[in-house]
């Protein structure tokens, strides 16, 4: 029997996010011949995101546009996706494991009386059954999980599942869905953008991270310059956050965020176990620390013993030379 797979295609300020294409990639991994892949785009200004999705060979793009959906409000978004679920009767609903997906997926799962597998990093088929790999203890261990019954709900971790690729001549049918406009018990009163123009930490391909060794909030400056040059994001250890050098939103570790970028540069981070859990699945790890015995060097591909305030600006210079040439 053919399945219907519904992908929540996340947009940010009307632009399709990379995670939306990765979530669509995950849908392709579980789809068999004859299965229908449909996507939902919701927001207050979604024309651009919808037209971007048109090239990706999905069967249907459901669109819901309403002022209530300008900022994420769980009740408004649940009402929107609920309307689409009623219509499409999906066998699986997929989200990115992002601020929105982490919040919305459990609401959808509970409303469907369904199981959910969170933060999926890989999908395989074993004996005709889809099997989902996900981290435990922030990546100190991994489990493979399978659904016992349907429907399925799962969230995929950014930077792990290959993004769907555009298909020549693709053309989706677009269905506008009426927002059911529930009376809301929660109101979003204000959104303070602290990350405008910056790359989201969990989606970043390059992360420059600072620990107690940066010594102050100003000490993050050279790290930010390098991150800006490389189009990366700045992260931090718990030590740096606890010391008040930066916002907890930057924290990487078992408390905080788990990141899996192409390049992770740890600056002045000793490498406590709880920090290593949050970054040791990065592809290439570089550690800069004054202490040659620091545990961070045990997971680093390249270690530099020295003062980050000497090394990081020199690295920025070297990268700049390479990037302009």
């Amino acid at each position, binding site marked *: 029997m053919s399945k219907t797979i519904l992908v929540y295609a996340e947009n940010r300020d009307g632009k399709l996010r990379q995670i939306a294409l990765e979530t669509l990639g995950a849908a392709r991994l579980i789809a068999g011949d004859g299965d229908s892949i449909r996507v939902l785009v919701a927001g207050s200004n979604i024309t651009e995101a919808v037209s971007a999705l048109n090239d990706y060979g999905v069967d249907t793009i459901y669109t819901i546009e309403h002022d209530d959906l300008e900022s994420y409000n769980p009740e408004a978004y649940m009402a929107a996706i609920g309307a689409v679920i009623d219509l499409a009767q999906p066998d699986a609903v997929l989200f990115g494991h992002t601020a929105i997906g982490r919040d919305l997926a459990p609401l959808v799962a509970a409303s469907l009386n369904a199981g959910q597998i969170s933060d999926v990093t890989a999908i395989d088929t074993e004996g005709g059954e889809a099997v989902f790999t996900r981290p435990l203890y922030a990546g100190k*261990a991994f489990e493979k999980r399978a659904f016992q019954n349907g429907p399925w709900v799962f969230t995929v971790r950014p930077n792990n599942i290959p993004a769907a690729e555009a298909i020549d001549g693709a053309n989706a049918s677009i269905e506008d869905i009426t927002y059911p406009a529930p009376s809301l*018990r929660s109101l979003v009163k204000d959104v303070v953008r602290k990350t405008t123009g910056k790359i989201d930490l969990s989606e970043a391909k390059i992360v420059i991270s600072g620990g107690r060794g940066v010594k102050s909030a100003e000490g993050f400056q050279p790290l930010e310059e390098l991150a800006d040059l490389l189009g990366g994001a700045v992260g931090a250890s718990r030590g740096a956050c606890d010391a008040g050098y930066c916002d907890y939103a930057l924290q990487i570790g078992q*408390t905080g965020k788990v990141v899996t970028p192409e390049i992770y540069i740890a600056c002045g981070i000793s490498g406590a176990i709880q920090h290593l859990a949050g970054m*040791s699945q990065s592809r290439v790890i570089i550690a800069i620390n004054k202490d040659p015995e620091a545990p961070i060097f045990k997971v680093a591909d390249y270690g530099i013993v020295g003062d980050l305030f000497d090394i990081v600006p*020199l690295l920025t210079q070297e990268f700049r030379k390479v990037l302009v040439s």
Partner: protein
Amino acid sequence: MKIVVLLKQTFDTEEKITIENGSIAEDGVKFVINPYDEYAVEEAVKLRDDHGGSVTLLSVGPDRTAEALRTALAMGADDAVLISDEQIPDDEFAVSKVLHAYLSKENPDLILGGNFSVDRGSGQVAIRLASLLGISHAGSITKLTLNGTTAEVHRDAEGDLEVLEVQLPAIFTAQQGLNDPRYPSLPGIMKAKKKPFQTLSLDDLGLSEADIHPATKQIELSLPPARGAGRFLKGEPAEVAHELVNLLRTQSKVI
């Protein structure tokens, strides 16, 4: 104000993970209150002190969870309920059903929990409960202010700050930065020993194994592959920086 705190006992975050006979070994492991739940306990105790009412701790877990609950009682919570039953599977669908069976009879004004647990890390249970109980929620909050029948919360959304006004009853999950959890005082520890502590089974909640049949199942558990030995780059800072960028281009091919 009747406040319930959802609490899970987890491994200390400095613990290494080892696998024995297909499951994660617990011998000699230090257990703590899930760090995010600790913020929830602190916030609940502060709110009760400011607004009156009671703080009930609620947990699903094995018998050892009692230790974490006693610690939270010593921080100032009033009573604790531990739902302990070997039939409860490690599946968020099932755990939320168990918690719902208890909470649906209690009608708290406010339910607080952690943003996620640092062991399974799925962040589902509290939000599922909001849906099952038919009440509002906001996840990952860094500030909570009660204004009569509503609460104003600050929510961390990937580094941006969202300010929400939410009607009570509601569920909120704590993010770092919400508060600085207190350490239990000695008098607090003494008092905690005498506070009401209830242990419930599935039977007590009127649930059968069929009611909480897991929707997902673990089929394999493994440790991540160890990272191969890296190398130190040595020399003057400028040489080292040059060499590193070169290696990233030619060997790692990531630039």
